[in-house]
């Protein structure tokens, strides 16, 4: 069921809030041992369920009332554990609600549980979770993507109606693509980061993972807004007013970036999707975004730098994993070494390196400058198009262990990082399936894996993303 379908059924009295909750909770309990999408499935919150039912009975308009959602384990729900899938915060109980949680509670939404993720959001496969990986519902020998892999798998396997994830370099969009659902990263500053365990503060955004575009829009509207607790949140119209979506959209494609490395059938599916858009009357244009080829390098300088700063607060002193040695220094080192997994430690060291006095100009300041140039290139491209399009990933979901080399894993984000660097909104929408040999079904058998198309729009032009995505959604349902 989608949010829209569930909301209709609740109001038509075909189902009660309690029945909807029970159905999701049961699906979650049944399938989670295999998929490991949830780190914890919450008990039913009786008073929230009763209150949601009452509001629906009284004709409450909020579409999210009574809807069971899943939240990524780095979003704080007061009183619940928020571990960011780490040993460091394994037993940390949130002392306040994230602003997005508060907004969802006010809307009457319910929470099925907290979902698995790469530890501290560092990864593209959910293999870096301290509590085991999540499996892709389309093929359980493959990853669901990451870092919001648990949320994506939960939605794709119908263990919840929709979910929230966080996106720093593609962590909502890439798992959406790999599990065949919709994933949106809003404009930087549109959704409050208060109560989101910080990874890279100039890059992080919370975003919805849903089955349809309309559901994504509903969740997006519910969670966004200026928040005094996050001073980087922005008012509507900061970037020059709402652009009404034109009936005929211009889709910009940076062909020069797609010359190599994209799997042939992924590229073919992408081109076929563009053709469908063209047949509906939209224009496809070529755009040039040369700095994109350095975007991943810039990201892997800026993000670790911010990570090393943000994770400095996790020192084993006031909360979290607290190991004690002989000296105070030992306390810090033991707590952090034991509490952080390998990838987390790697990125902290990388960040420490690029910020150190001998290297800060060559790496960090250079990356910062190239980030500004990338943004200018996109803004220039948007003079000739409404959205920029490319495949979300180079290939479909890969097998567990296939990308053990860290750099190979980093390359998963090669397209998605640009939207975090520029701060622009971006979305991944299902565009079809490709076939790969299956290991689980037997020799000679193949499995169909979803792939996604990725759109970027100017700052605060999410309406353009919804418009073009709806066209893709429509074209695929024909």
């Amino acid at each position: 069921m989608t949010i829209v379908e569930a909301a209709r059924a609740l109001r038509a009295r075909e189902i009660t809030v309690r029945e909807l909750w029970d159905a999701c909770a049961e699906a979650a309990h049944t399938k989670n041992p295999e998929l490991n999408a949830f780190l914890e499935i919450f008990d039913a919150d009786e008073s929230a369920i009763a209150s949601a039912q009452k509001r629906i009975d009284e004709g409450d308009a909020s579409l999210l009332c009574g809807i069971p959602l899943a939240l990524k384990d780095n979003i704080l729900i007061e009183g619940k554990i928020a571990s960011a899938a780490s040993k460091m915060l394994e037993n940390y109980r949130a002392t306040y609600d994230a602003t997005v949680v508060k907004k969802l509670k006010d809307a009457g939404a319910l929470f099925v549980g907290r979902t698995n993720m790469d530890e501290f959001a560092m990864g593209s496969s959910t293999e870096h979770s301290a509590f085991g990986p999540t499996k892709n519902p389309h093929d359980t020998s493959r990853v669901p993507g990451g870092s919001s892999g648990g949320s994506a798998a939960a939605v794709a396997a119908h263990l919840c109606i929709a979910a929230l994830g966080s996106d720093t370099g593609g962590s909502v969009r890439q798992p959406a693509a790999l599990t065949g659902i919709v994933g949106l990263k809003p404009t930087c500053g549109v959704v409050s980061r208060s109560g989101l365990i910080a990874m890279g503060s100039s890059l992080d955004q919370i975003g919805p993972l849903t089955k349809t575009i309309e559901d994504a829009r509903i969740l997006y509207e519910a969670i966004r807004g200026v928040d005094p607790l996050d001073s980087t949140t922005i008012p509507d119209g900061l970037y020059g007013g709402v652009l009404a979506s034109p009936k005929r959209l211009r889709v910009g494609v940076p062909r020069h970036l797609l010359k190599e490395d994209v799997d042939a059938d992924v590229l073919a599916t992408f081109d076929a999707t563009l053709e469908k858009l063209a047949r509906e009357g939209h224009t496809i244009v070529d755009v040039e975004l040369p700095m994109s080829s350095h975007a991943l390098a810039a990201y892997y300088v800026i993000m670790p730098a911010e990570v090393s700063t943000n994770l400095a607060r996790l020192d084993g002193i006031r909360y979290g994993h607290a190991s004690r040695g002989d000296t105070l220094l030992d306390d810090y080192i033991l707590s952090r070494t034991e509490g952080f997994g390998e990838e987390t430690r790697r990125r902290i060291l990388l960040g420490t390196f690029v910020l150190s006095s001998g290297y800060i100009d060559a790496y960090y300041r250079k990356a910062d400058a190239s980030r500004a140039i990338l943004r200018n290139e996109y803004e220039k491209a948007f003079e000739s198009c409404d959205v920029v399009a490319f495949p979300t990933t180079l290939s479909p979901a890969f097998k567990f262990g296939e990308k053990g080399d860290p750099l190979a894993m980093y390359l998963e984000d090669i397209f998605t990082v640009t939207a975090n660097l520029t701060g622009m909104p971006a979305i991944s929408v299902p565009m079809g399936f490709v076939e790969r040999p299956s290991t689980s079904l037997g020799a000679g058998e193949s499995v169909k894996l979803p792939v996604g198309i990725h759109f970027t729009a100017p700052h605060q032009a999410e309406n353009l993303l919804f418009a073009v995505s709806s066209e893709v959604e429509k074209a695929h349902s024909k």
Partner: protein
Amino acid sequence: MATTEEVKKLAALARIRVEDSELEKFTSEFDAILAYIGQLEKLELPKGETAKPALRNVMREDGEPHAGGLYTEKLAEQFPAREGNTLSVKQIITHD
């Protein structure tokens, strides 16, 4: 580019230890990553583009603090070791 010595030094700065058994593998992976991001070093920025970062941090004015003691118990509950409402830690300054 990166040596095991450098990795050990960075680890010390970051209050993390890389075990000797992991050090070789870690350093070579680290080195490969540095080689990749090193492309930025060679990147020539267009002339005249000091490219002022488009991002700026935003701070709000200090407001009134909330009533004292509102969150104390919730926070103190998470202390690894406590004495009343205070966090117990090792002595930081010795007076020998």
